[in-house]
């Protein structure tokens, strides 16, 4: 790596780390979802400071150049981020569904005038 590339990459890595920590500090990002981003920032800094690790990894996976390895790693990281988002969205969808059903039943109970509206009661913990 050329010195300018090293310095630019190190700045990017450090800025990303500082940005993520600041976002967590200010409550914009929950700690539970910051680990991959911290890993990316830390990974960039690690590659810059130990370029031989990248060269070694390239040899291990059979990449012709370390640049190819970097692109591959970047692609894998993006895949992992997308996978994390899918899992989180799925969890939130289940929770929103449960909350929506809960609100609907509370609404029904509060304004109950129809058949059985005041007699039925949701049991917390019942399967949704």
């Amino acid at each position, binding site marked *: 790596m050329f010195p300018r590339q090293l310095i630019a990459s190190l700045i990017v890595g450090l800025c990303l780390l500082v940005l993520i920590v600041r976002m967590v500090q200010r409550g914009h990002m929950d*700690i539970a979802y910051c680990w991959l981003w911290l890993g990316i920032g830390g990974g960039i800094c690690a590659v810059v400071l130990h370029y031989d690790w990248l060269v070694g990894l390239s040899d291990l996976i059979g990449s012709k150049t370390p640049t190819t390895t970097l692109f591959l790693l970047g692609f894998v990281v993006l895949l992992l981020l997308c996978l994390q988002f899918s899992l989180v969205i799925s969890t939130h969808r*289940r929770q929103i569904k449960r909350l929506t059903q809960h609100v609907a039943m509370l609404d029904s109970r509060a304004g109950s005038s129809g058949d059985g509206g005041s007699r039925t009661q949701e049991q*917390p913990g019942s399967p949704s």
Partner: protein
Amino acid sequence: MSSERLLVILPAKDEQGRIGAVLDAVRRVLPNADRVVVDDGSDDATVAEAARCGASVLSHAVNMGYGASLETGYRYAVRQGYGLVAQMDADGQHLAEELPVLLEAVKRGDVDIAIGARHGAGLRGSATRRAGQLFFSTLLLACTRRWFGDPTSGFQALGPRAVQFFSSGVFPCDYPDADVLLMAHLAGLRIREYPVRMRPRAGGRSMHAGLRPLYYGAKMVLSLFIALLNAGTWKAWRRRFGDGG
């Protein structure tokens, strides 16, 4: 807020068969205290058992975590005007007979947070867990210059300033332990540990089971770091609400 009104908060998830005895013990030891069970999405009859014992029940529609359950209890306490709050686990580990020890310290005005610290190595779990507790106690010592032997104890009594602070949105959703103590210390709350007896967990699944300790350790280190970065925020809170004494 009335300093005379006492609320005992019991966060619970799937504690059927255990919570009834805990609630009865609290009623026996503190007949004038109100009890609230914060049900965090139980799949069993925890809510029904708590209601049969005459406790108020706040049910989360979805599972939000131990910290969120405690915060629900604190917000309920503030909204209902309780000046004194005690919190304990619903699984039978914490003895209601030890609550007066913690409450007296808070009532006297000596402390804002009285923590019931378990003593006796046998009650602190596996060697890994004890090593983890020692690690976080040491980190807290470095940050606060005070030793907390049991930083993960959820057996506590809180005065009005502590309840107000914890209900202001600072409480983490999942594992509120050493980071919460650090935040409270930086906000000027007076914290002290008192040795208490505890029982081994009567059953059910611990929130620290499985691979969670790995996540817990990493999260706690980062959380402590973030709490230190936010020292200015906690000091502003201290200026706004005053020192305890």
